[in-house]
């Protein structure tokens, strides 16, 4: 029986691929695609009359399939449904890494889920605090409350914007260039950064329009997102490549790290690089860049 190591709250999450938890053909080898995270879906992908079966499928998959380094997150059913509490019991007992709260609208929603996770961890003898959370922001209200949501729980590692329902609520359609999502995306990234958590862009719905997908992925990277949701394995490579740091970014990051190490050794209190003063968060960011470059396989240096 598989027991997964304690999940890391902050780790590389460039790609999060959704798959229906009720489909054994999909989840049996979900780790071979090499996405950073998979999201086993108990919500939209699962028909209303199969919610119960999907949990048994999820539980047994977690207990016997070794997903290795691939992070396993489960999208549970919305808090307005009769399913979410049992979803949480199942996830915690099965030892998943994290729970994605669908249609999260307020800090209260996060706290509700957190309370249910707390009690499930006690019930099933799981280390308290082990199960991570992320919030999916899918409505104007959820996005307005993004900062409160992002700071509502220590378990919460990030938030994702989910555009399908959001566009409907806003009475807009998907537009080339993404102007209809512009404010929402900006708000979500800013809230996540202010709260010190990660943020993830929505999935691209039209699998045939590759150019559209690529443009949106690049835009998400430029806006500051940490990664993107996916539904199709064909999209993984592009997302990984886009969210990987460029050689120029790596070179600058290396310079920051080297200079920090030198100055730290010499006990200087104020840090400068090329004669300019540099604040501590810049160094943290540089380390993150190097780390990501290593994980993406584009780092060839010696740090």
């Amino acid at each position, binding site marked *: 029986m598989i027991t997964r190591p304690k999940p890391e709250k902050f780790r590389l999450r460039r790609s999060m691929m959704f798959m229906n938890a009720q489909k054994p053909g999909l989840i049996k080898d979900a780790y071979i695609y090499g996405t950073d995270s998979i999201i086993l879906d108990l919500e939209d992908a699962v028909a209303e009359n199969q919610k*119960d079966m999907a949990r*048994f499928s999820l539980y*047994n*998959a977690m*207990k016997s*399939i070794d997903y290795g380094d691939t992070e396993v997150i489960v999208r549970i059913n919305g808090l307005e449904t009769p399913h979410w*509490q049992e979803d949480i019991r199942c996830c915690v007992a099965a030892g998943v890494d994290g729970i994605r709260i669908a249609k999260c609208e307020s800090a209260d929603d996060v706290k509700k889920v957190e309370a249910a996770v707390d009690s499930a961890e006690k019930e099933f003898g799981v280390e308290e605090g082990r199960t991570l959370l992320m919030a999916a922001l899918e409505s104007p209200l959820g996005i307005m409350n993004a900062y409160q949501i992002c700071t509502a729980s220590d378990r919460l590692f990030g938030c994702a914007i989910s555009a399908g329902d959001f566009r409907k609520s806003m009475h807009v359609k998907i537009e080339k260039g993404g102007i209809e999502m512009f404010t929402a995306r900006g708000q979500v990234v800013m809230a996540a950064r202010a709260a010190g958590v990660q943020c993830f862009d929505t999935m691209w719905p039209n699998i045939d329009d590759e150019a559209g997908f690529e443009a949106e992925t690049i835009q998400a990277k430029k806006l500051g997102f940490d990664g993107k949701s996916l539904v199709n394995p064909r999209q993984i490579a592009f997302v990984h490549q886009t969210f990987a740091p460029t050689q120029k970014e790596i070179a600058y990051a290396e310079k920051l790290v080297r200079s920090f190490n030198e100055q730290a050794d010499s006990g200087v209190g104020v840090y400068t690089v090329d004669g300019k003063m540099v604040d501590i968060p810049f160094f943290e960011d540089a380390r993150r860049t190097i780390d990501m470059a290593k994980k993406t396989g584009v780092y060839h240096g010696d740090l």
Partner: protein
Amino acid sequence: MEIKKNAVAGTLESSDAQITVEPAQGKLELNIQSSVLNQYGRQIKKVILETLDNLDVKSGRFYVVDKGALDCTIKARVEGAVYRSADAAEKDIKWGALK
């Protein structure tokens, strides 16, 4: 658990198994259809019987159509069918006891 009514779990899709259960007075009956019955029939049967034993199911008629499912999938479908037949699949599952 007691098999109280007919129930079905799973699908006929590749890598899945469809398990139908009916009440049977005091008997445990297993019917397996699988394209890999020759190679894996014994293993499939073993997984089903272990799962039923763990759920303390003593009687019932089981029809299994295997489409190349992993053991964990067969186990999930057996558990699903049994819990459904006992009208207990929706909530308060004893997850920890499912082994």
